[in-house]
């Protein structure tokens, strides 16, 4: 076993997801299959190989420091499930 049920539950919390008991069972088994498959990478000698982070060689892409128009506040808030005035409204954060 690469991953156990309690680890799946912990990862779910990190990912801000929650599952029923049955879903956790299924995910544990499927994630094990997938992680077992990935074991094959250990056969590859990668000593001294720099990890590739991007497909093309590139340096920082800087733009000119010019002030451009921003989206109007109403448009930014228009998609919010719960907006009040100029704010996004959320359930209580602290007790």
């Amino acid at each position: 076993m690469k991953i156990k049920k309690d680890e799946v539950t912990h990862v779910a919390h990190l990912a801000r997801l929650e599952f029923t008991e049955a879903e956790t069972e299924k995910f544990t088994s499927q994630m094990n299959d997938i992680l077992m498959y990935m074991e094959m990478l250990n056969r590859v000698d990668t000593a001294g190989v720099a990890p590739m982070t991007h497909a093309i060689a590139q340096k920082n892409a800087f733009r000119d420091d010019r002030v451009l128009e921003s989206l109007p506040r109403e448009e930014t808030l228009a998609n919010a499930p719960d907006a009040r005035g100029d704010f996004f409204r959320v359930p209580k954060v602290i007790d």
Partner: protein
Amino acid sequence: MELNQLTIHELQEKMKAGETTSTDIVQSVFRRIDAVEKDVHAYILLTREAALEQAAHADGEIRKGRFQALTGIPIALKDLLCTRGVTTTCASRILHNYVPPYDATVVEKLRAAGAVFTGKTNMDEFAMGSSTETSWFGITRNPWDLERIPGGSSGGSAAAVAADECIAAIGSDTGGSIRQPAALCGVVGMKPTYGRVSRFGLVAFASSLDQIGPFTRDVEDCAILMNVIAGYDPKESTSVPAEVPDYRQYVSRGIDGWTVGIPREYFIEGIDAEVLEAVQRSVKVVEGLGAKCTEISLPHTEYCLAVYYIVAPAEASSNLARYDGVKYGFRSQDGRDLLDMYKKSRSAGFGAEVKRRIMLGTYVLSSGYYDAYYKKASQVRALIKRDFDEAFKSCDVILTPTTPTPAFRVGEKTDDPMQMYLSDIFTISTNLAGIPGIAVPCGFTRGGLPIGVQFLAGHMGEAKLMQIAGAYEKSAHLEKRRPNL
């Protein structure tokens, strides 16, 4: 032939000659949609009224003698490209009501070139899938056989072009999501070089792999669309500041004297016999065009899938952290407090495959596992890219099958994620290496399902792909067929 069955360049000639109008073309497309969409379900949203307005505007321009690259041509957009004022759902419940306040750069460019938008096409949720079966809005079916899947994740775009429900379409390709459905639906599909087309306004899946590209009826149309959508975008920091050649010029140049590499690792056990046969016939066609085909080796090919299913979910888990039920999209009303609201919104808003990939990605990035998975995968990824760099020292392009099998049946692989992932085995390496690839129809199975051959080139080698795909298409003399819907 009906107008909705023609290519972009054929329609442009007819409009220029005054034989037809954009309004006629758009009406012809929507008549077809009315007739077959209930069976195919290529679209999540149709924008008929706006399309007719855009067509009327295009016709006005044409009367004034103003023709742009796509004036009056009906194009479908995959529903992960932001369209100002038009819902963009990513086929997910979590974005089911999201109305972007801006256009993706690609959409802006198509609009500026005079295109007419027919609607937003169906896809696997967040582009995660190979069959368009994970959409929250229901599955899309393959126009060649309604019992089969169209491929994915851009299955709606591929099916819409194949079923004549648009003239061309735009999709995105993270591990094969343009080329695989193009092959399974019998159309041309191109994944450009990473950085060739701006991703600004594309809902992100795996940012180091995602790339936008066209679905068309022929290679010339592919070149016409690439001429419009390619190019540097200051809003997208990974877009490459390089000149865009006129791709159309390359379509009829021929490939006399070229060397075409045939990687032995792509002709493996498990590949469907009829697919193999069709691809081998393509090799003969290419040789007949004066190219030399030689066997090459891409030794790290067998690791591509494992690398991909670490890198892509890792990036996805980070990209999809933004869906929190606060700023846009679905919010669960059952949350007791903020944390509970996040969990309930995300758990009810995402489908099973998306959650599986977020979980995998979170796991491989989590403390203690990063080096074993993500770092290791990124190192092997560097070796995969090095294989291609070496190969392109001795050949102009590479020829492979696009998919190991023709379209599979609806439901056949939904319970086994590993089997589903294996259907992208020939397309994933391209994204890992960041190189361009094109899928071109190369025949049919005896049961009447389309098969596609794939050509790959080095970085920024799209012109070469137009050249070989154009030459191949012209000499392959494939039977002209249309799906019987």
